[in-house]
């Protein structure tokens, strides 16, 4: 059961260096392609990205997932610290706000905060509750500029 005294808790920052190989690999995964020549070229080729009006290669819209999973110690130790039961865990919602472009060579620092914890009664099951934990991440680049916000809602059923 999630420990509600953890609302407001801030996790230690995680750091992720954006690499073009990782961007291409991620783009291949989400576009179900076998090679990086088959993905949208702004994700894989600097020249193509520049021709399309970008400063350099950019990552796909959900690449933020990698920042946390490869940059931090992973999600599991964090969830354990908040007292979330992994066996009952569902990913409820995910939301990204894009504030500044991200390119290879950028070094991103993410800080995750527990912003809300609440219970909701299950439909048609009086007295049975689902427990919600909402995390918000602020992700800054090496210049300290806020580049992204991410909001994750986790559910224990």
């Amino acid at each position, binding site marked *: 059961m999630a420990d509600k005294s953890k609302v407001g808790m801030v996790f230690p920052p995680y750091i992720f260096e954006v690499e073009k190989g990782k961007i291409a690999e991620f783009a291949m995964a*989400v576009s179900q392609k076998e090679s990086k020549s088959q993905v949208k070229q702004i994700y894989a080729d600097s020249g193509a990205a520049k021709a399309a009006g970008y400063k350099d290669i950019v990552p*796909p819209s*959900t690449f933020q997932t*990698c920042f946390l999973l*490869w940059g931090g110690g992973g999600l599991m130790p964090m969830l354990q610290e908040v007292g979330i039961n992994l066996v009952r865990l569902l990913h409820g919602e*995910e*939301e*990204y706000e894009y504030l500044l*472009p991200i390119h290879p060579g950028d070094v991103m620092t993410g800080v995750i905060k527990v912003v809300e914890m609440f219970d909701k009664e299950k439909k048609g099951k009086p007295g049975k509750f689902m427990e919600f934990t909402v995390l918000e991440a602020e992700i800054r680049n090496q210049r300290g500029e806020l580049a992204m916000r991410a909001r994750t809602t986790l559910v224990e059923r």
Partner: protein
Amino acid sequence: MTKALTYESIHVGDAMPAFTSDPITRTHLVRYAGASGDFNPLHHDETFVKMFGMPRVISHGMFVMGIVGQAVTDWVDDKNLRKFGVRFSGMTEPMDLDDPNSRDRATIVVTGNVVEKFEADGEKRMRCEIQAADKLGGVKLTGSFIAALS
């Protein structure tokens, strides 16, 4: 032919171009696990999920969101995407290669509609509601995105 994406040419109610994924296979899940760093065995190890009475592994929710992200940025330029959020509502099982009938449950169809045009932070924007469902109609997620328009 897709309509040019300008504030004038886009109207509330317009549909975004429909997008259909390839049927998700276990190989896709393994590739996504490696790319994203999400190695929860729920998504690749059948001996693990069988302990919980599940017949087969399930897709990462974030993989399905990634597919939806591809659908969205096939339509709007990546640099114009301002916000993108989803609520997960159903699990996705990969197709079984020895069962062609399982293709439809593993094929994701992304649809969406423009629901609002507005101005914010000095730019013209639209908000679209989106949905991802398999070819049998099982809804995987619903959500919305906001994109800047010229």
